[in-house]
């Protein structure tokens, strides 16, 4: 009883590890669905991603002379790698996951000073790096092939696909909706035709479509996201603003020219939007402090995503949009502060309101 402690002498039952753990738990349904949908190669990819991230985190901490054990247990490196893995093509080669994890942990996080210091979302920075450096591997999609189905690769075959670069059979490859639409529009084919039978809302909601291994099931991701909101790990501001940021311009453009612009529903259920809205843009380190700043941040990501998807060179723009808005956070935080009690928005003390209220 000799050490002195400052108040408060009580603390909420919470820790960084617990926060990260809750997020990982919320990701689990969508991840298990991805395992089932894409089979052993996806599982391998996930394991490689997380393993390399842990190793990279440990080595970085060791080099910097920081305590390794506690930082590894806080789960932040695992979560980063997990999110990265979910955003990769499910049958991607192992080195894609390894390079991505290494980049995310060492260059995007530890170089900046470790947990809490990074400017950019590590998972998205890695995804962007991979997309620019390895465009072919990053856009080789696979048609859903549940692990229980006849043609699905077994354990050994899965290892061969992930680690030995065994190419999937021709019939198995597929394009994502956004990629397909981009190609077709490029060939001057108008939308209703281009879409054909590609889009079925129910399938897209459940997730039985081609795409990144953890991004396809909007339903399961939504459930996970709602868990996070209910458990108060995140607030509704960023996800809602981000979805609105995509849906509003999409609605407007689609209403003006339905043959050239995708409907908002398609936008919302495609690509990595739902995953990013609930799990990536809400990363505490790389999101603004105040509720109003978060609304702007989310809306900005959504709007940029729509712009990149519609007019950019890449079919999917979530990762770019997140990084661009990450860069804007210092400015957002500077101008979007909560109003202080007893002061007006500009920070001047309120006038003694005696006369005014009589």
């Amino acid at each position, binding site marked *: *009883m*000799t050490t*002195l*402690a*400052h*108040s*408060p*002498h*009580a*603390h*909420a*039952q*919470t*820790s*960084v590890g*617990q*926060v990260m753990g809750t997020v990982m738990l919320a990701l689990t349904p969508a991840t298990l669905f991805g395992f089932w949908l894409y089979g052993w190669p996806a599982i391998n990819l996930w394991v490689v991603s997380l393993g390399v991230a842990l190793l990279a985190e440990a080595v970085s901490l060791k080099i910097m002379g920081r305590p390794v054990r*506690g930082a590894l247990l*806080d789960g*932040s490196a695992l979560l980063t790698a997990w999110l990265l893995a979910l955003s990769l093509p499910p049958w991607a080669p192992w080195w894609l996951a390894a390079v991505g994890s290494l980049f995310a942990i060492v260059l995007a996080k530890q170089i900046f000073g*470790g*947990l*809490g*210091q990074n400017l950019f979302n590590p998972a998205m920075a890695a995804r962007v790096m991979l997309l620019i450096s390895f465009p072919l591997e990053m856009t080789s999609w696979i048609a859903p092939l549940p692990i229980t189905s006849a043609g699905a690769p077994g354990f050994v075959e899965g290892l061969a696909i992930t680690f030995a670069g065994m190419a999937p059979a021709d019939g198995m490859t597929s394009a994502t909706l956004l990629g397909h639409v981009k190609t077709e529009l490029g060939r001057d084919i108008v939308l209703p035709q281009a879409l054909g039978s590609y889009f079925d809302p129910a399938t897209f909601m459940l997730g039985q479509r081609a795409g990144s291994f953890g991004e396809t099931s909007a339903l399961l991701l939504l459930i996970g996201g709602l868990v996070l909101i209910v458990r108060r790990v995140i*607030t509704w501001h960023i996800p809602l603003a981000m979805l609105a940021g995509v849906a509003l311009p999409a609605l407007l453009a689609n209403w003006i020219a339905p043959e050239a612009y995708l409907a908002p529903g398609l936008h919302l259920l495609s690509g990595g939007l739902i995953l990013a809205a609930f799990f990536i843009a809400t990363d*505490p*380190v790389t*999101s603004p*402090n*105040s509720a109003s700043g978060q609304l702007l941040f989310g809306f900005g990501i959504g709007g940029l995503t729509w712009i990149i998807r519609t007019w950019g060179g890449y079919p999917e723009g979530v990762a770019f949009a997140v990084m661009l808005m990450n860069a804007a956070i210092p400015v957002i*935080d500077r101008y979007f*502060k*909560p*109003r*202080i*009690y*007893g*002061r007006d928005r500009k920070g001047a*003390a*309120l*006038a*003694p*309101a*005696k006369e*005014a*209220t009589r």
Partner: protein
Amino acid sequence: MNVASEPFLKRLLVKAGLSSSLHKLRGGVHPEGRKDLSAEPPIRVLPMPERLYVPLQQHIGAPARHLVGVGEVVKKGQLLAASQGMVSAPVHAPTSGRVIAIGDFPGPHPSGLPMPTLTIEADGLDAWIDADPPADPFALSPEEVATRVGAAGIVGLGGAAFPAAVKLNLSRRNEVRTLIMNGGECEPYLTCDDRLMQERAAQIVEGIRLIAHATGAGEILVGIEDNKPDAIAAMTKAAAGGPVKVVKVPAMYPMGSEKQLIQVLTGQEVPAGGRAADIGVLVHNVGTAYAVQQALCLGRPLVSRIITVSGGAIMAPGNLEAPIGALAADLVRACGGLREDAARLVLGGPMMGTQLTSLDVPVIKGSSGVLALTVQEVEQTRPGPCIRCSSCVRACPMGLLPLEMAARIRAGDPAGAVDWGLKDCIACGSCSYVCPSHIPLVHWFNHAKGDLAARERLKMKNEATKKLADERSARMQRIAQEREEAARLRAAKKAAADAAKKAAAEAAAAAKAAAKAKEEVEA
């Protein structure tokens, strides 16, 4: 209530009964109450300890000046020390007995530093002085009520211990319209106000009416958190038919903070750097109202208070009516003593109370609780890096950005933290409480506030020193000048004198010569 400035929608909702007429508290946290530990047993009177240690400073402001000497026999309620200065409060004898020492004794402060204290040996009779309560205290003028409250040594019993009479006079000058009685008691563990309201509601209501009489406030609201239904019922019953209105407010920390309670009950905010009186509001604690009633109706000055003794490491938690100056150890002993797993002793509540290094310190007028907490309750973990989750931003009832302020203080820039609102921080501890990285944010803030105050003092001292030095050099210069002047004057005087002498000698010689010549002629 100030409904006119309310948004139209809110007014409609209130009218339709769809929304409570209460306003929202920004931020806030829901710490585990743990009030059940001490809430059940009725208030017990602490058996009079053999010795009481009565500090001369138990309030904000100047310490009282002692009027009694060692060996003097005093009665309970006798004036021991008089207030001095504008903001001060007198101290009275908490029991009858003999003053056996006047000197330093460890104070109830984390430092354990000694403070001027009167030690009284109780004679066991606990005999009151002859009281002279007015026949009808409501017939007294408001000024007289305030004077008597001041003379009874009453200070804010919610914890801040600001002299009550000073606040009453200030309120009268500012024409306060709304009197808010704080029965929030939002600190976990503490149940002293809860028990007091349950057991002595009539006296409290009478005290409230006296305070209203002293200030001229027309609207009287008692805010009580909804986790104290028995207290609400007792107070509502006692207040029935009178001007005092009991309002149920949601249980949320820091509801019992003056600024927050005003916001919830009136929708108004105290201007930054200002006082509640600036917006026509006065806030007092319900315990203070009880003390006012005792002083005006019974002529008894403030010599005891209700103190919660609780925590996981107290054998039999409860509330004690303890004389001022009893040792914390006396209180703990009366509650069955400490369990072996006591990890931390706290004076006050766990959110804003201070740690005690020893139980051998006296309880004073502002002491609301003595807590002995176990390791599990304290939940102390090594702080980790800030992950910018902004939990602290959402928890802050003042709308501040604790993470940004802490970052600046860490970088050695407390002045930068002021730009982010450090001076508006009320140190409620909500941010520290919710931080998943267990960063002691409030500790940083209080450290920075102290640092800034020290810098301010140093600056003032430097300025004073410089002024003195400047004055000295001016003075030296003046003296040197004066000396020079004097020397010059002296030299001139001497020269004049010499010249006069010479002239006189010459004149004498001339006269002599003339006389001689005349003699010669005559001869």
